[in-house]
């Protein structure tokens, strides 16, 4: 039987229905559940800032910083959050250039996730430097003694990479939002109309605006594409440029980029599986989109599997006893639980996604996404902490003793990220109205006349 299947990437709604459904998510009164969620996130954010205040007053010694582990939970969490950001830009920019149609329904939420994740990540190096009020010393600014930062240091590359990433990804998000905010403006009244009117920057959808906008969006995507690949490479060089066993690896850049995208897609799944239900947009983000997200997870998870295997192989093949001991202790040393959590949660759990049934079952996908989040935090913990805990001389080996200040900042970072995301999805279009409309064929008079 020849059945012409409906292309699942093309939405089934009309243009008017798209506007109505997305604007509804903003104009609808927030439920009690929303207030509870936002309240929890606000509370965790408060925890973050109170702890930060304590760190400012009493110093970084409050956290579990002790030689040899002078990079610990904060740097682990920094890499974790920067990594989360990468999936968003991959989906919004790289898949845009690839003309991958499934990205349209999910890209706005992932891009918002990117901006908020990088905003969260950017807190950590500042917390970590100890004298937080002097953070501007990182920037090359003219000063009395004409001292400049060391441009040969990977840590300074990181300052440039992260601040560029934060600026460009927020710009990309805001540029994409302008036509959608204009659509919201035209559907609300009173002070909201004024507010969205200001934010829409006078957008009317006139041809003279689209002409420049569509072209510029393409170039922005083209600029974001190498940026995604570069930022986590630069983060990886923070480690790889040093000579610490376990850090000094040439595979670090691609290994980190794959891991970043993997963790980011994991976070996307954790966020949008409940979100589409809460906002009742199940008809816009469908099984088809989740299937594709899961395939992306499977691909990056498999690259990660290969990278893990290769790391152990290179450690053995290098013949360097320091490298070999580090890797032996990753699996069987005092941090064995972290080492195995990383391998099981990332390399093995992702392989379940070969099964279509698992890919399209949202409950299983959600559970897997939680494993990914946990596994990817542990991956960074293993790389940062367990490599530092056993470097060259056994005399200098040590273990980490995290304190409440470590855990409160970690928990608080989820609150800070969650609060921004929660406020965003209730006040801005979480699905890109204009891009969805671009995919729906406009009605035609002639086709209609010919008998529909």
């Amino acid at each position: 039987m020849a059945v012409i299947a409906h292309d699942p990437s093309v939405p089934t709604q009309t243009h008017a229905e798209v506007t109505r459904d997305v604007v509804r998510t903003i104009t609808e009164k927030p439920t009690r559940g929303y207030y509870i969620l936002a309240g929890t996130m606000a509370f965790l954010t408060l925890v973050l800032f109170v702890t930060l205040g304590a760190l400012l007053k009493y110093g970084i010694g409050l956290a579990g910083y002790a030689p040899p582990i002078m990079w610990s939970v904060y740097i682990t969490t920094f890499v974790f959050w920067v990594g989360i950001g990468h999936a968003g830009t991959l989906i919004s920019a790289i898949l845009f250039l690839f003309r991958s149609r499934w990205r349209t329904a999910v890209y706005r939420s992932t891009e918002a996730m990117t901006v908020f994740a990088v905003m969260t990540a950017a807190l950590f190096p500042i917390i970590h430097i100890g004298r937080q009020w002097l953070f501007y010393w990182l920037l090359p600014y003219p000063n009395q003694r004409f001292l400049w930062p060391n441009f040969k240091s990977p840590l300074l590359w990181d300052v440039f990479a992260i601040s560029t990433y934060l600026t460009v990804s927020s710009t990309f998000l805001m540029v994409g939002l302008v036509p959608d905010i204009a659509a919201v403006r035209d559907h609300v009244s009173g002070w909201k109309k004024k507010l969205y009117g200001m934010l829409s920057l006078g957008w009317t959808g006139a041809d003279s605006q689209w002409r420049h906008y569509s072209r510029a969006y393409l170039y922005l995507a083209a600029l974001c594409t190498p940026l995604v690949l570069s930022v986590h490479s630069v983060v990886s060089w923070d480690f790889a440029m040093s000579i610490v066993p376990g850090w000094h690896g040439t595979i670090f850049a691609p290994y980190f980029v794959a891991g970043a995208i993997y963790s980011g897609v994991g976070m996307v799944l954790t966020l949008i599986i409940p979100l589409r239900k809460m906002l009742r947009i199940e008809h816009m983000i469908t099984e088809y989109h989740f299937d594709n997200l899961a395939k992306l997870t499977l691909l990056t998870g498999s690259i990660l599997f290969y990278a893990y295997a290769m790391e152990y192989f290179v450690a053995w093949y290098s013949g360097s006893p320091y490298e070999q001991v580090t890797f032996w202790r990753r699996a069987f040393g005092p941090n064995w639980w972290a080492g195995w959590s990383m391998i099981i949660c990332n390399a093995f759990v992702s392989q379940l996604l070969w099964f279509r049934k698992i890919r399209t079952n949202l409950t299983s996908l959600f559970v897997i996404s939680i494993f990914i989040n946990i596994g990817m935090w542990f991956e960074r913990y293993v790389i940062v902490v367990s490599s530092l805990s056993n470097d060259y001389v056994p005399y200098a080996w040590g273990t980490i003793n995290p304190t409440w200040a470590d855990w409160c900042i970690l928990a608080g970072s989820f609150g800070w990220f969650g609060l921004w995301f929660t406020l965003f999805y209730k006040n801005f279009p979480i699905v890109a109205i204009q891009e969805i409309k671009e995919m729906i064929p406009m009605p035609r008079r002639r086709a209609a006349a010919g008998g529909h």
Partner: protein
Amino acid sequence: MATSMSGVLGSFDHIDAACDAIRELKATGHKDLTVYSAAPNHELEAAIGDPVSPVRLFTLIGGLTGCAAGFGVAIWMSRDWPLLVGGKPIAAIPPYVVIGFELTILIGALSTVAGIIILSMMKSLKGRPYDPRFSDDRIGVFVPCRADQIVGVETLMTQYGSVEVSRDA
């Protein structure tokens, strides 16, 4: 000076009807049309027939400026306070590629956004009528014209399938 322009605003439900009307309006010598749509559309673009946006020049110039600035800042600052480490060059190019690259992207992206704003502002839309339904599912075509042309344009719009025609005088 009048706050609104004199002209005719037609709304269309169908893309082919709107394109036909735009082509006909252009053929009959009407210039400076404004076409509103909720999403960019290639058929509309072709009917309007404007050349490719020059916004790419902003991207190019911004990107090159960023690249030069990145390398320039790193090289100049290294030489301004020379610190010899391990016999390596004072201004080393490979590590500065990262700085040059990041600033290429940063300034390139920001100047692209400035490009959208500047280029869009070059054509003022002040006084041109707008209907909130244009951000929904309607296509709007506004033709600025003299009072004696209004009836002719209205007839043309209706003939080509405009579902709503209004005049702004």
